[in-house]
């Protein structure tokens, strides 16, 4: 048999190359094999405060700090203005309800920054901690 005929015969044979049929329940098995991954996705941790919100909070805090340094008060901190207003409100409340509340009269506002900034940092640490625990929940469940 000549090479040409062999080639022709081979081409003819290759036309009979066909698909092997996958088992009937193949798709079901694949889909059920995906269930563990689907379960993982369902319990994925999504932070309560989004990244965008954190950025916004950060920017606001920076503005607050800058304002405090740009407009310093002779009598105290920048926060004295709203606190004076609050003191007025307290006085009014006292006169209405006749309750004794001296808290805002003698309030030292210098502690506000040392409180706000660590609180903010603690909030971030807490958020990251939750994220870590949720990510490694299988480890913590044992």
């Amino acid at each position, binding site marked *: 048999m000549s090479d040409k005929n062999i080639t022709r015969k*081979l081409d003819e044979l290759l036309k009979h190359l066909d*698909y092997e*049929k996958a088992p009937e329940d193949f798709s079901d098995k694949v889909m059920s*094999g995906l269930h563990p*991954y689907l379960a993982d996705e369902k319990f994925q941790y999504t932070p309560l405060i989004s990244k965008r919100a954190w950025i916004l909070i950060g920017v606001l805090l920076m503005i607050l700090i800058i304002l405090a340094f740009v407009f310093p008060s002779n009598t105290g901190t920048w926060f004295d203005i709203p606190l004076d207003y609050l003191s007025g409100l307290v006085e009014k409340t006292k006169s209405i309800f006749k309750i004794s509340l001296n808290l805002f009269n003698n309030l030292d506002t210098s502690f506000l920054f040392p409180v706000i900034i660590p609180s903010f940092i603690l909030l971030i640490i807490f958020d990251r901690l939750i994220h870590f625990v949720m990510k490694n929940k299988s480890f913590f469940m044992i």
Partner: protein
Amino acid sequence: MRHTIKMDQKDDRYYISKVLEGDMQAFSYLVDKYKDMVFTLAFRILKNRENAEEVAQDSFVKVYQNLKKFKSKSKFSTWLYRIVYNTAISRVRVKQNPTMSIDDQKFFEIEDEKQNVSKSFDIENNKMILQRLLNKLDESDRALITLYYLDECKISEIAEITGQNNSNIKVKLHRTRKKMKEELHRILKSEMVEII
């Protein structure tokens, strides 16, 4: 079937986006669409139905897990077949001597001498001869023939699937055809002897 596999790429992209949105029915559609080709490719490489089924299933799970990484630079089928090819080849390397079921042995190891080749022009016999030719090839050559002749993949696509360059694939394809022709020549010669 061939037409079904060669469906529009846009169609695949639509279903992929649906899967990424969490629509599992869309993934089920992709599995149904490609399951036969995926199974065929795995079977041609592994020569064992059970192993081929496992590899095909694993491949679809890998596809699902990595679907976010698919950038649509190539066809979805090319990306899918690459995963199947790599998974099956790794399996072959792990199991140097894969065990075959009796049915698979019958399918792949047809005794040359006992074959009745006088009816070789019948379709069934042609299929059997083809199977014998494939059986003489190694797993990567069988995959090459399957991708080129069955799924009608382009040389560049096969190169992407197998991780080789275009010229390598062309040379391999030429050599594989040559091997098959030599084996076919031997079969037809024995047929002639039998008739005489």
